[in-house]
């Protein structure tokens, strides 16, 4: 087709990227502000807290962060398709109970527990997907419902009790199994100086980044999050992509739960309770990194690390525990200022959250 027609349009509104060459402080802030804040705090803690300088502190901080970060990556993926998975905390909590039941009550190997937990996570993701894609229940409401369901249902087979070795079962016998050493190794083990949870976190962060920014699936998922109707009209099978996002989120949450279970070493029924809000927070914080103004894996990972740095630093400086929430809240506000107030792209990147 040799179209020669030209459509001469008035181009380049003055505030469009590329229309100017001078350095714009606001642009710099939006792009690098968040990273600068991270570096400033990091350097400040390095300078003022001797113990902070130890490499073991670094790794234990990253290890501590990994659970939230992995759940946050799952939340990120659901935010990319314009949703939000509110069931990640409950899923991680359920994973702790499932792992404990598999090993303590059914006396299975750690590997069996790992498989059981991941399968359970995928099933929850599938249930969320069925509610959202097939039953057309809005994402937030569907995952809120599944959050309650999971939190309640996980207690049914264990009669509402935490599962630890030596538990007396309903028939009066003592539970035969225990958390296997191999399973506990998930949290305690390390490759050289790098703890396994940090490796898992890093691998999942890279995989998620790769999926979202280098594959067709990621591209279409972003399009769906921005305009599902446009994606549908362009021929994308919107339902499949959304289902995939929720399944992935369920699996990520269950992996976070595995690390949590291995860390706690028993089937604590309250495990994962605070995870949801932290995971959502790091995913939201992540939207401001490098001026992305959209959910992204690198941002979420960095957001989790910044919050980890701040929590470790403030703890080492003997702040009271309740300052932790203040710190998280402040980080979120600052990140949202970078995303919304300062950014010229005042768009709604989370369709599920009325902004």
């Amino acid at each position, binding site marked *: *087709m*040799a*179209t*020669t*027609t*030209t*459509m*001469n*349009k*008035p*181009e*380049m*509104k003055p505030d*469009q*990227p*590329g229309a100017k060459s001078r350095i714009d402080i606001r642009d710099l802030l939006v792009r690098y502000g968040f990273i600068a804040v991270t570096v400033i705090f990091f350097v400040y803690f390095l300078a003022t807290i001797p113990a902070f300088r130890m490499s073991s502190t670094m790794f234990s901080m990253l290890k501590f962060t990994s659970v939230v970060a992995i759940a946050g990556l799952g939340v990120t993926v659901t935010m990319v398709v314009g949703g939000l998975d509110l069931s990640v905390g409950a899923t991680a909590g359920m994973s702790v109970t499932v792992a404990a039941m598999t090993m303590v009550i059914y006396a299975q190997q750690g590997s069996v527990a790992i498989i059981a937990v991941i399968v359970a996570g995928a099933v929850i993701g599938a249930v969320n997907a069925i509610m959202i894609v097939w039953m057309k229940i809005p994402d937030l409401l569907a995952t809120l419902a599944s959050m309650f369901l999971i939190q309640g249902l996980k207690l049914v087979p264990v009669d509402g009790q935490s599962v630890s070795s030596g538990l007396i079962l309903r028939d009066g016998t003592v539970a035969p199994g225990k958390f296997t050493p191999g399973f506990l190794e998930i949290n305690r083990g390390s490759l050289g100086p790098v703890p396994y949870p940090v490796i898992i976190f890093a691998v999942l962060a890279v995989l998620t980044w790769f999926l979202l920014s*280098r*594959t*067709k699936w*990621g*591209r*279409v998922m*972003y*399009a*769906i*999050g*921005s*305009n599902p*109707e*446009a*994606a*549908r*009209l*362009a*021929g*994308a*099978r919107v339902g499949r992509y959304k289902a995939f996002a929720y399944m992935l989120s369920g699996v990520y949450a269950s992996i976070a739960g595995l690390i949590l279970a291995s860390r706690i070493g028993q089937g604590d029924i309250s495990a994962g309770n605070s995870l949801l809000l932290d995971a959502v927070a790091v995913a939201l914080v992540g939207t401001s990194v490098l001026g992305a*103004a*959209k959910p992204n894996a690198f941002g979420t990972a960095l957001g989790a690390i910044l919050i980890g740095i701040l929590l470790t630093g403030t703890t080492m400086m003997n702040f009271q525990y309740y300052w932790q929430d203040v710190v998280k809240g402040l980080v979120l506000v600052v990140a949202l200022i970078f995303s919304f107030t300062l950014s010229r*792209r005042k*768009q709604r*990147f989370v369709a599920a959250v009325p902004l």
Partner: protein
Amino acid sequence: MTTETKQETPLVDMRDMRVAFGGVHAVDGVNITLFPGEVVAVVGGNGAGKTTLIKTLSGAHKADSGTILINGEPAQIETPRDAKQYAIETIYQTLALAENIDAPSNMFLGRELKTRFGLLDDSAMESAARSVMGRLNPKFQNFKVPVKSLSGGQRQSVAIARAVHFNAKILIMDEPTAALGPLETSQVTELIQQLKAEGIGIFLISHDIHDVFDLADRIAVMMQGKMVGIVNKTEVTKDEVLAMIIMGKLPGEATQSDIEHLHD
């Protein structure tokens, strides 16, 4: 009283199309054809059923019954993917673009180019976008920013470039100029003439009777889900078409006093 003058096989032949929403017959037994190199305008008031009719061709909406022939062959069109198999491309009134990704990504949305390793080939998509856009709108240079920062006209260029790149044979334009200023409108007009000269058949849905008279070869008027009639532009006046749209009366049926009432 449709005016069928051409004898060749129509590009599109839609027969007895029906779509109902609940008890309402949005499209009620409509027949329409489109020939290569022809612009058929589909006009009518709000709720006349024109958009719904055309959505059954673009795959955006499934018809309850009816037959669609493409080049004389029966076609099954149930999804937008199906429509694209028949080289049917649609430019939507709402400029159906994903705001947070850039122009090349939007052009290739759902049909992304990939490298040998199955990964996104962004540079190939960008160069393809540049080459199509170079013909359509050479001033367009914003290939790397999300389309949310583009103007209405630039977005329209992206939507049209998508159709052109994928070698549309049948183009559906739903109010293509509704979001545009006068200058941009005249550029779209020019582009439609160009596409027409290349043998592409175009369905044009429009509210604007002047646009319709500028662009269309035939004018199909719908009212309350039914086809009032399809007329050759050269054989009718604007008033006669208005009488069809507003009163559902064909030229000849409308009396002089009907026509005068139009201007009350």
